[in-house]
């Protein structure tokens, strides 16, 4: 896996034309996807592996293998989709469908007046689309799901909080130390402590659904976000940048945000205050 370049790793997200009667198996993180095409029918079966790959340990697997009919899982849980004129599969990375509660591997305290730059490394989702070869027509979505088993968690108080996914991450502060992986995205996050108190950064709710996905030469990115902490009694402002990340010279858009609403984002960030500060 070491010798494989990032562009070769990215091939997992390339279009995959499939002849009728062919069956392939995708290994993606903790997920196995079997896909079979019969004329206008797409048959899909997904399963999480019993032993999940722990993020941050061994490099998660990703590959595509054609398989014989005998190797297909003998289960009644196959889903059949009817789609005309769609002989090509378009596996596409996607942002998770809920916000992420990111817990860094260590507690970092940001002193008053300091600004810290982090890179949040989070797992992507898989979007399975089919369409004609060559993207003459926009591919149609069959389904989407997480590539890794993601644990649900609650952010905020039990009455007005929100449902999120929990994820742990190494707190990367150096851009060059970031892993190159096609199943993970990186969100550049800058935190400015403009208050007169210490800001312990032990957990953050990242509203990834307002972020876009970009691919660079060595990593998958989201647009950068900036958190301005003005004090326990003040509103914390989280502002996602409207521009692509600037850490790589050439990036291209992979996926647009799930939701486009700055107002919504601002409203929700208020609960971030309580979690970050412990108030």
């Amino acid at each position, binding site marked *: 896996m070491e010798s494989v370049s990032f562009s070769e790793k990215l091939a997992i997200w390339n279009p995959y034309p499939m002849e009728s009667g062919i069956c392939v198996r995708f290994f993606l993180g903790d997920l196995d996807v079997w896909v079979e095409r019969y004329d206008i029918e797409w048959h899909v079966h997904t399963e999480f592996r019993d032993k999940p790959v722990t993020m941050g340990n061994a490099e998660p697997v990703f590959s595509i293998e054609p398989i014989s009919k005998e190797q297909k899982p003998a289960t009644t849980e196959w889903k059949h989709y009817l789609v005309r004129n769609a002989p090509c599969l378009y596996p596409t990375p996607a942002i998770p469908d809920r916000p992420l*509660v990111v817990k860094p591997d260590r507690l970092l305290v940001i002193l008053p007046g300091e600004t810290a730059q982090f890179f949040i490394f989070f797992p992507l989702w898989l979007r399975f689309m089919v369409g004609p070869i060559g993207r003459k027509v926009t591919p149609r979505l069959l389904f989407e799901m997480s590539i890794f088993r993601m*644990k*649900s*968690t*609650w*952010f905020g108080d*039990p*009455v007005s*909080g929100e*449902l999120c996914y929990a994820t742990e991450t190494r707190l990367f502060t150096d851009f060059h130390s970031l892993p190159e992986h096609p199943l993970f995205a990186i969100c550049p996050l800058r935190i400015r402590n403009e208050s007169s108190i210490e800001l312990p950064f032990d957990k953050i709710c990242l509203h990834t659904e307002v972020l876009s996905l970009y691919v660079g030469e060595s990593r998958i990115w989201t647009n950068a976000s900036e958190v301005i902490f003005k004090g326990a009694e003040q509103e914390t402002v989280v502002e996602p940048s409207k521009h692509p990340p600037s850490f790589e010279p050439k990036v291209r858009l992979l996926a647009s945000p799930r939701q486009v609403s700055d107002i919504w984002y601002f409203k929700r960030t208020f609960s971030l205050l309580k979690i970050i500060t412990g108030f």
Partner: protein
Amino acid sequence: MKILDWLQYIPSEVFQKGLNVGITLLVGVVIIRFLLYLSAKTFLKPLSEHSKLIVRNVLLYVASTILVITLLRQVGLDVSTLLGAAGIIGVALGFASQTSVSNMISGIFLLSERPFEVGDVIKVGDKTGIVSSIDLMSIKIRTFDNLFIRIPNQMVLNTEVTNITRFPIRRMDISFQIAYKEDLQRVRKLVMEIVEVNPYALREPEPLWIVQGFGESGISLLLGVWFQKQDFVNLKNSLLQEIKERFDRERIEIPFPHRTLYTGSVTEPLPIRIVQDR
């Protein structure tokens, strides 16, 4: 032919009035129904089920009252005299129908207080079900075994009502026992591992773990796991099954009520003497 003959005996004035009343009633009912339909398709659309029900009922009662007054006028009854008489009749009826009036007043309180809405799962006394309507006299709930229950509003107001689905997340408390010989720390670690991999259990708020006390047969423990309100059955079934299976695998004893009899000494077996050898 016979009907037409019979109609000849009706005075033309009465016939005319009857016809007018009939037409007004028909047109009135059509207009009311149209108004309700129109409101449902327009300004009621974005409202919650509960608000829709209130506005719809108010519209229906107001429109029906106007229609009745119009009909009475057409018949030739003086409405003001009738309203005066209604006061006296009202007092008499009030005594006769105290329960109904009480239910109606309770209904108004329920509608304004909003302890629950249509679609909520509530528990009233020993009855649990989904609220299907909140009316002026009673509420209707559908139980999970598909029974229809009508509960008078007065009873709802006087009884403790639990709204099970008011908040988005809940905590499920599971009480169980382990034998005295077990290592509490090890059991806690195992249970937390089970909760962590359960897809219906939330990681935060953190699970609650309380050593409740020393029972007759074992140590009583309480595990509180947070979950999304719709995952109640899935969580309960999966969690209890996983705890049982894991405890069996790890040879952790869940004690059942038992008593140990000693015959004066802990170590010596119960003495048995054969009295007859066949």
